């Protein structure tokens, strides 16, 4: 039966059909739904790991044990997991192992625009790249066959437009594929003596895979009527090429992006007058063609920045694109994402901005603390960088930054890679103050459980890591908890911990206002007679508050009655609704 399926759900379906039995992932847009979808199949064990490195190593362990395994992550997550990646490439697998990675060209929800295809070449691991949901199912299944046939982990590379597009699929049946574990130190213990023997195996494997790529059905030539030009492409760029060119030019669509076929590329190039490579982000196919000595044109006309579209491809290929429609002359104000009304992070960032604290921020919803009018954040790099960055910042200024600098990191991000930074703070004794914003969920990626929530991916109760105990255990003596809805309590804690002559942790704890179990208060009321139009309540950037006819106005459909604004008003104009006080 035909059905519409999201690309990420299709990956999950393909994993399921291939007999995948173990999944360990860390959420990250645009990869998250793969793991959420696979968790719904009772035959598959699935979990959220604290980070991508743990996920990949766990998936490797499951493969070693004889179960087909998967780990999923976004492009920057693969950086975290790069260490095991490069060595699992040497050991190979027992049962098939597939690594899902989703790039984010256009940076819809990411801090950089890196191209994960480079990892395939650098780690010498084959990479498949589906272009729609039907291919996502097909390639996920194929990935396991390749993994076992060639004794290698296989990268399955998604991107935002494939992950988050629904297209028509037909589902197949699940096969079970289980192997026995047999002890094999020479293969699985990568100390120098063994690794030296494995490296040639890896090189031979890449040669064998290159041979396979020559005849693989997923590297297909679609002939065209006009051989003045041929196009080599893959993934979503293929869709834009076909949208624009139809069947006019021959197309070599690469389903396996590493290793690439050599003869097939040469033969294709020989069949056309000129070859254009259409690929998003970096020169990868193009660079390989250049290395083969095949003349192609790619990044000379196509950008390395941002995602493509059909109009962009049409323009770059010199073909007709539709004219843009009409628009009004007025400037249309942007609508950037904002912290939700009732977000527990708001009170904290207001307090930090008010006290002019330098804030080394981190990855999550609370990155939005950087946006006006709060504008409370100084830097955001990657998962965990707030804690280690604050340590370096405070150390480097030799006391001058003491009392003025904090790290702000979420509960899930702290578990991901904040702990080791905190160990460094304790061990090397910097006078840093670390604020863990604990909203009891992984918020940004759409409410995933994590080790601090007491629930697992399948929704069952499980061990809850106690943040206070953990921070004390690594050597932080000053650990305290505040409610960020209480501005006075929050400010007092920040001032006291910044003044303390030793490292400290403040846990700013309040569940995400969007969680189903969080009860909202009645909307805040405005006493127009008392409102002096000072706009102090506007300084917290709450989307529920605006000025109407010169007076503060509350949007009752958005306000959760968190009461943070009522604590700002000097004139008693903003009040909690009586019943809930």
């Amino acid at each position, binding site marked *: 039966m*035909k*059905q*519409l399926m999201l690309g990420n759900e299709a990956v999950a379906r393909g994993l399921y059909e291939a007999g995948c039995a173990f999944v360990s992932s860390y959420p990250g*847009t*645009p990869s*998250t*739904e793969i793991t959420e979808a696979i968790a719904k199949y009772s035959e598959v064990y699935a979990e959220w790991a604290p980070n991508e490195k743990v996920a990949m190593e766990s998936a490797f362990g499951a493969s070693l044990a004889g179960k087909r395994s998967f780990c999923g992550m976004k492009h920057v997550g693969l950086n975290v997991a790069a260490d095991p990646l490069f060595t699992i490439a040497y050991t190979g697998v027992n049962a098939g192992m597939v690594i899902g990675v989703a790039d984010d060209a256009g940076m*819809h*929800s990411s801090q950089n625009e890196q191209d994960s295809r480079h990892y395939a070449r650098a780690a010498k691991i084959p990479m498949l790249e589906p272009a*729609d949901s039907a291919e996502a199912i097909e390639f996920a299944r194929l990935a396991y066959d390749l993994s076992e046939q060639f004794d290698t982990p296989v990268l399955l590379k998604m991107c*935002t*437009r*494939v992950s*988050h*597009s*629904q*297209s*028509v699929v037909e589902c197949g049946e699940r096969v079970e594929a289980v192997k026995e574990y047999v002890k094999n130190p020479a293969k699985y213990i990568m100390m120098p003596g063994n690794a030296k023997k494995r490296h040639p195996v890896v090189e031979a494997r890449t040669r064998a895979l290159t041979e396979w790529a020559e005849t693989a059905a997923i590297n297909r030539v679609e002939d065209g009527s006009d051989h003045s030009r041929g196009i080599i492409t893959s993934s*979503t760029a293929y*869709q*834009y090429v*076909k*949208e624009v060119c139809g069947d006019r030019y021959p197309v070599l669509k690469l389903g396996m992006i590493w290793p690439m076929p050599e003869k097939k590329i040469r033969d294709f190039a020989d069949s056309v007058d000129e070859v254009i490579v259409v690929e998003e982000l970096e020169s990868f196919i193009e660079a390989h063609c250049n290395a083969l000595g095949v003349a192609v044109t790619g990044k000379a006309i196509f950008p390395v920045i941002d995602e493509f*579209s*059909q*109009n962009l491809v049409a323009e770059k290929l010199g073909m007709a*694109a*539709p*004219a*843009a*429609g*009409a*628009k*009004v*002359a*007025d*400037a*249309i*104000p*942007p*609508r*950037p*994402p*904002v*912290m*939700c009304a009732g977000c527990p992070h708001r009170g904290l960032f207001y307090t930090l901005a008010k006290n002019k604290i330098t804030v080394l921020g981190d990855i999550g*919803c609370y990155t*939005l603390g950087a*946006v*006006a*009018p709060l504008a409370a954040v100084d830097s955001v790099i990657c998962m965990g960088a707030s804690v280690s960055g604050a340590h370096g910042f405070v150390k480097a200024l030799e006391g001058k930054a003491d009392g003025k600098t904090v790290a702000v990191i979420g509960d899930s991000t702290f578990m991901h890679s904040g702990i080791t930074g905190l160990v460094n703070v304790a061990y090397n004794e910097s006078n840093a103050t670390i604020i863990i914003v604990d909203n009891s969920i992984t918020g*940004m*990626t*759409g409410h995933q459980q994590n080790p601090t929530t007491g629930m697992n991916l399948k929704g069952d109760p499980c061990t809850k890591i106690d943040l206070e105990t953990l921070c004390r255990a690594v050597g932080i003596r000053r650990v305290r908890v505040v409610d960020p809805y209480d501005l006075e309590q929050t400010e007092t804690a920040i001032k006291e911990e910044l003044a303390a002559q030793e490292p400290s942790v403040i846990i700013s704890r309040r569940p995400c206002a969007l969680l189903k179990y969080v009860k909202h208060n009645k909307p805040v009321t405005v006493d127009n007679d008392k409102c002096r139009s000072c706009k102090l309540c*506007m300084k917290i*950037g709450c*989307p529920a508050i*605006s*000025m109407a006819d010169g007076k503060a106005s509350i949007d009752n*459909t958005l306000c959760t009655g968190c009461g943070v604004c009522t604590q700002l008003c000097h004139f008693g104009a903003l009040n909690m609704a009586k019943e809930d006080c």
Partner: protein
Amino acid sequence: MKTQNIMIVGVGGQGSLLASKLLGRLLLTKGYDIKVSEVHGMSQRGGSVVTYVRFGDKVYSPVIDKGEADYIVSFELLEAARWTEYLKPNGKLVANTQQINPMPVITGAAQYPDNLAEKMKAAGIDVDAFDALSLAEQAGSTKAVNIVLMGHLSRSFDFTLEEWMEAIEKSVPPKFLELNKKAFMLGREA
């Protein structure tokens, strides 16, 4: 059949995902090739959101580009104005007249342009603007604004009312079915 392009635009949290789900269900029963593309993650936090729905004999690109949309369905007026360049010359804009101030307007850094519906009409755009929010309220919940808009859009297509209703039944929880059916009819008749 030539590919038809529908864009659903609005503000994160307004329920555009349900609208595209409903369309997807309906189009699938008609045997079309379909692509529905949306962006998840950070842009959902009250930001500008867009969903692309494309259907026809064979659909390649998952997105709709400038000058390609047959229809834009907008949940909010400023968002309608943001995307009109994506309409075809004879494309149609179905817009809810609701206005939601973005943060730059709330903070006073920018102005919400006035009379946007009239200005879009003056620019030559085929604008069908109506108060879908009130109709949703009338149906029983402001959250049904997505279905009111789909009801209004349904007038532009040849699909039967039964086909639309069947797609609604498959897309909403049973306890909200009557509410949504009512919302759909209010939109269809508006």
